[in-house]
């Protein structure tokens, strides 16, 4: 197990390096002179030159990259061009909000998705199965921002059941979590169903039933445990979708998190902040999938070492 963890950690290293290269290149993908674009069309040449110097754009590109890495290692993500504050500080105050939103949505997605998926599989081709699968198909096909708008309009404004925007109280979290969690719940429900059906049709489940075990124990103790394995991988990948979903959800509900920060930074051409947010999102995703792989291994001890 320990060797697996170490090997998996080592495997993540090139990915992290690749992530930093891609984030670094972002600045250089800008057509034309990034300093000029950041400073604005009308900026005087002296100001552009000062900015170029400040961003280190006069060095050769590999030198710039290594300087960038050097700063990253020291926890320096650069300075926001608009607010002049360190990017890390800007992210720090928002990271918790976004992470909490994503984590709550993931939890809700898992609870709903797993329950619905198991019901669907156990009652295959019955009306409840059809209902769950149709609902999942819709959940998968809805743009989350539209779902958010409709929830605000009908649940928050018309019925006045919950506040329409903001973040802080638990009531304010309800609609964003539904908005962000719906597609995840749909994906997990579909995955759980097909995985359960795979398992239920296998010999050892028939044996368990033949032994006279109650159906409840057969389903929960024998089938679900094995059916969960592929679902865990999906949950890890789902977090990536959830993190990018926060960008949309935070905008719709006016939540001051990292996603909204990214949008604001993009529209004001504050590229150091954009780079910082993208980097933090990507590293979070890599870390979570590392944890998922390790728990996957833990769940599936029979899996041969490769």
């Amino acid at each position, binding site marked *: 197990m320990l060797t697996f963890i170490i090997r998996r950690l080592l495997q993540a290293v090139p*990915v992290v390096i690749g992530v930093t290269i891609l984030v670094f290149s972002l600045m250089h993908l800008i057509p034309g002179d990034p300093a000029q674009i950041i400073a604005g069309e009308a900026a005087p040449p002296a100001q552009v030159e000062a900015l170029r110097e400040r961003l280190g754009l006069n060095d050769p590109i590999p030198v710039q990259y290594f300087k960038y890495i050097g700063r990253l290692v020291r926890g320096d993500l650069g300075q926001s061009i608009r607010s002049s504050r360190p990017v890390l500080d800007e992210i720090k105050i928002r990271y918790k909000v976004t992470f909490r939103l994503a984590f709550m949505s993931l939890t809700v997605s898992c609870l709903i998705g797993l329950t619905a998926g198991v019901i669907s599989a156990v009652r295959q081709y019955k009306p409840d199965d059809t209902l769950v699968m149709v609902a999942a198909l819709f959940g998968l096909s809805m743009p989350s*921002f539209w779902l958010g708008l*409709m929830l605000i309009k009908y649940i928050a404004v018309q019925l006045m059941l919950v506040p329409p925007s903001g973040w802080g109280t638990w009531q304010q979290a309800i609609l964003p979590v539904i908005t962000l969690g719906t597609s995840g719940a749909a994906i997990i429900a579909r*995955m759980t169903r*097909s995985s359960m059906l795979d398992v239920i049709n296998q010999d050892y489940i028939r044996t368990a039933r033949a032994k006279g075990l109650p159906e409840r124990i057969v389903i929960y103790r024998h089938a679900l445990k094995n059916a969960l394995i592929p679902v865990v991988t999906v949950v890890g990948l789902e977090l990536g979708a959830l993190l990018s979903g926060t*960008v*949309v959800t935070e905008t719709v509900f006016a939540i001051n998190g990292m996603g909204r920060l990214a949008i604001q930074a993009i529209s004001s051409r504050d590229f150091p902040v954009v780079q910082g947010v993208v980097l933090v999102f990507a590293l979070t995703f*890599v870390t979570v999938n590392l944890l998922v792989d390790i728990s996957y291994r833990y769940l599936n001890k029979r899996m041969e070492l490769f």
Partner: protein
Amino acid sequence: MNKTAAEIPVSPQGTGTFISGISAFYKKISKNRGALIGGYLILFFIIVAVVGPLLTVHDPFEVDYSKILLAPSTTHWLGTDHNGRDVFTRIVHGMSITLTIGFSSVTVGALIGIPLGILSGYYGRMLDTVLMRCIDVLLAFPGILLALSLVSVLGGSVRNLIIAVGVFSIPSFARIVRGSTMAVRKLEYIDAVRALGASDLRIIFRHILPNILSPIIVQATIRIAISILIASALSFLGLGPKPPTPEWGAMLSQARSYMYDHPHTALFPGLAIVSVVLSFNIFGDGLRDAYDPRLKA
């Protein structure tokens, strides 16, 4: 969506051509109800995109302040927006934009992802390791954020939206094609063809590609659904084509300020997105079932 194309068993048909691959594909889907319904819906939407704009009576761009935010009626089936433009007409005109973005971005993703996957799966070893790590890097970027940063750098337009969303599809194509290629490459007949002196290029194009066509098609269908959703989200965030383009995501973004008193402005463009994405998902599910009889049990 998760029982992805990767798990579709590749069906070795010996030597094959694209034509035989495609005719086998037709035969297969014609037996699946979901695939048929989804397929017909998609066909219907394509027809709407091509013919629809010729049949609408209202102008999708003409601003008329005497008709602002009218509720749905017999003259304006889905009402009018804040500029007095007919919502139904704008939705019909937006259909071609949505479908173009969906098809083109997936084509971009497939054109880059498929060769990467074949190279990785066919040659294996070092090349495979390097390519797959690159794919991992791409996968590590949350989709919308990757597309978002690309669009922010390139600027907002339909073309840039297609590129940005297409890049996001590369990893999934590469992974699925790699898996299928590895499965086919191990089959005996590939050894046989190689023993007969076929070149790598010939083996790849004549013997591997036709046999991995089905998982690719299934994946492409699913990706179109996802790409349309992402593109509409980017557009909603203001990174899509500029107004007054009747792009559905952009329409929703404008409707945000009016939807409280005039819900039809936000309801219908959203329903349009849902129906198109839904039909691609139904089609994709049907295709996958047709190719994976195991799941039908």
